[in-house]
């Protein structure tokens, strides 16, 4: 039934069944075999081979484990036979597995069938495909293979092709997305352009210069003072333990988030992440519903910002252990932030707004034109962040700011806002304050401005509703094809 192994992505489009790379079963199940074999060799090495070698070199005259030695001598033939049989069985099983693991793609659907005993057949409709990620775990990466993670709209509706040679995976990705790419830009310049490259040093620096480190330092100083006062140094063990956990955390984060790169590829953002296992995801701008720049307090010294986004529809993200790509850049300079905003929200910002956002990043207390801020009395409700809270309606988008320990500035195009609310609790009402909140697709960014003057908030909300409607109806006539959740 299958036409053979896929060597060239162009062959895949015919609707015939194709097999994946022959090493797939080895990479999927072979790891266990390798682990068992390694353990066996290690045991033999420690108990038998190494002592024998040491004896023969005259380093040591202690004889190896006699029982094991005799056992191996006596059964050598059988053991060899059993090993050969095991290898043969494994090869046959792997080969059979490889034979039944096939996929097919035509103009409408992508199917993947696999399984020797338990058979599965997954199908994804091509017009519902949202995102395709090329993931490269460490081992396949060394072998030049990649996993193609095709995410369609709907919960748990993703199809995974593992493994394919990297160029085939990339070509296939392009072919599947082409239907969508075609109507956004005709001249497909396929060369990805490097936009932002986060230096490893800066990333590690951003981890060290964090609120967590400040807390840890405070704890260590406190414990030291206590230890000195009490004259009992045993308390210090806890500090050593904490430091160990801290270092492990730094390493884990660095391995996962290091080597962060943002490319632009025919209008889309392409985010690659991972020091050892790489994961790549392409994010079309129409999926970006809101962007947030956040700055933990210690980053102020360096002028660093983190860039998060609320993205439309990221189904199946949890099922294949893909890292969540809601982080657009883990740590960026102001120039990089502005560059990415231009890429992620193309043509949505007027030059003036862009300048204002730029100023907001360097002057965190600036009040934007057309923005409302908390009045003086809001200090009774939000004592520390009252002077920072702001909501500003700009041409085509909303800029909001909040937070004292971590400053958060968000930019949301009017055409992406789902709904807007004004709310007020008893404490708010006693002070004549209200909270404004915009609802966006789910994600790490929440859009609210607490403790605004009720009258101002109400007016702002009304103005926002009118502006949203105007923006939506202006776009409505050329509604994008990819209108889905």
């Amino acid at each position, binding site marked *: 039934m299958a036409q053979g192994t896929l060597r060239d992505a162009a062959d895949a489009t015919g609707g015939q069944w194709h097999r994946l790379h022959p090493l797939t079963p080895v990479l999927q199940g072979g790891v266990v075999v390798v682990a068992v074999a390694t353990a066996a060799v290690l045991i033999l090495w420690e108990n038998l081979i190494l002592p024998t070698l040491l004896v023969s070199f005259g380093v040591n005259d202690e004889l190896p484990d006699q029982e094991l030695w005799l056992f191996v001598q006596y059964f050598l033939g059988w053991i060899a036979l059993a090993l050969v049989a095991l290898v043969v069985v494994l090869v046959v099983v792997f080969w059979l597995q490889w034979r039944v693991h096939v996929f097919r793609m035509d103009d409408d659907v992508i199917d993947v069938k696999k399984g020797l005993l338990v058979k599965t057949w997954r199908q994804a409709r091509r017009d519902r495909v949202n995102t395709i990620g090329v993931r490269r775990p460490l081992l396949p990466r060394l072998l030049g293979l990649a996993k193609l993670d095709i995410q369609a709209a709907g919960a748990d509706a993703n199809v995974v092709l593992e493994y394919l040679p990297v160029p085939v995976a990339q070509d296939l990705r392009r072919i599947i997305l082409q239907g969508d790419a075609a109507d956004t830009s005709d001249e497909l310049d396929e060369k990805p352009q490097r936009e932002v490259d986060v230096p490893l040093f800066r990333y590690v620096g951003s981890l060290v210069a964090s609120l967590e480190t400040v807390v840890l330092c405070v704890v260590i100083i406190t414990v030291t003072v206590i230890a000195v006062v009490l004259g009992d140094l045993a308390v210090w063990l806890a500090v050593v333990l904490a430091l160990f956990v801290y270092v492990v955390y730094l390493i884990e984060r660095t391995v996962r988030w290091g080597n962060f790169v943002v490319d632009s590829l025919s209008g889309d953002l392409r985010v690659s992440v991972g020091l050892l296992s790489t994961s790549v995801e392409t994010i079309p701008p129409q999926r970006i519903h809101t962007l947030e720049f956040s700055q933990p307090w210690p980053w102020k010294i360096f002028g660093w910002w983190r860039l998060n986004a609320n993205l439309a529809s990221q189904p199946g993200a949890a099922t294949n252990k893909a890292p969540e790509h809601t982080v657009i850049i883990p740590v960026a300079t102001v120039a990089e932030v502005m560059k990415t905003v231009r890429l992620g929200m193309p043509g949505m910002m007027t030059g003036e707004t862009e300048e204002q956002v730029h100023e907001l990043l360097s002057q965190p207390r600036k009040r934007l034109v057309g923005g409302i801020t908390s009045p003086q009395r809001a200090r009774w409700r939000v004592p520390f962040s009252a002077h920072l809270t702001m909501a500003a309606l700009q041409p085509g988008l909303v800029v909001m700011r909040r937070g004292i320990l971590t400053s958060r500035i968000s930019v949301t195009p009017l055409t992406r*806002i789902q709904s807007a609310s004004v*709310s007020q609790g008893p404490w708010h009402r006693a002070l004549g304050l209200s909270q404004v909140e915009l609802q966006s697709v789910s994600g790490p960014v929440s859009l609210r401005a607490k403790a605004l003057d009720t009258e101002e908030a*109400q007016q702002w909300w009304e103005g926002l509703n009118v502006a949203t409607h105007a923006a*939506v*109806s202006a776009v409505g006539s050329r509604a994008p094809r990819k209108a889905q959740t």
Partner: protein
Amino acid sequence: MSDNDLQWRGISPRYRTELMVITGIAWLVILAASSLPLWIVGPGDFVSGWFIVSAVALVGLGVIGFIPRRVRAMGYALREDDIVFRRGVFFQRIVAVPYGRLQLVDVGRGPIARALGLAQLSLVTAAASSGVSIPGLPLAAADELRDHLIALAETRRAGL
């Protein structure tokens, strides 16, 4: 927070009954749970147990007595471009959902609502937190409103 220019439409007064029955059942369960110490120790030996039970009963009655006020605070208004929903007495919230943002409109009915001929209209947008559901609509009105909203959403649909 009220906006006088809007033509607010209220919730059916029958919704009071629905809410009272549901809340009443919940508080009966809580009341039963709070009387547990009395059953274990014995009603005669544990006087303060009676205080707990009566306090719970009092709070429950207060909550139920407050329901008409809560229902009165709920309302919705259909404007030219969006639907506005308000609710809450102590914690007030007022949401505007543009028609073009509606993904689907859901009419749901619980057993008590069904007995009273009521239905709840839930508006779903791409954002989970929009959370607009208008309870206590007469079934015919709910169906009509749903069809109306869907038609409006269809004409003003703007993708995501």
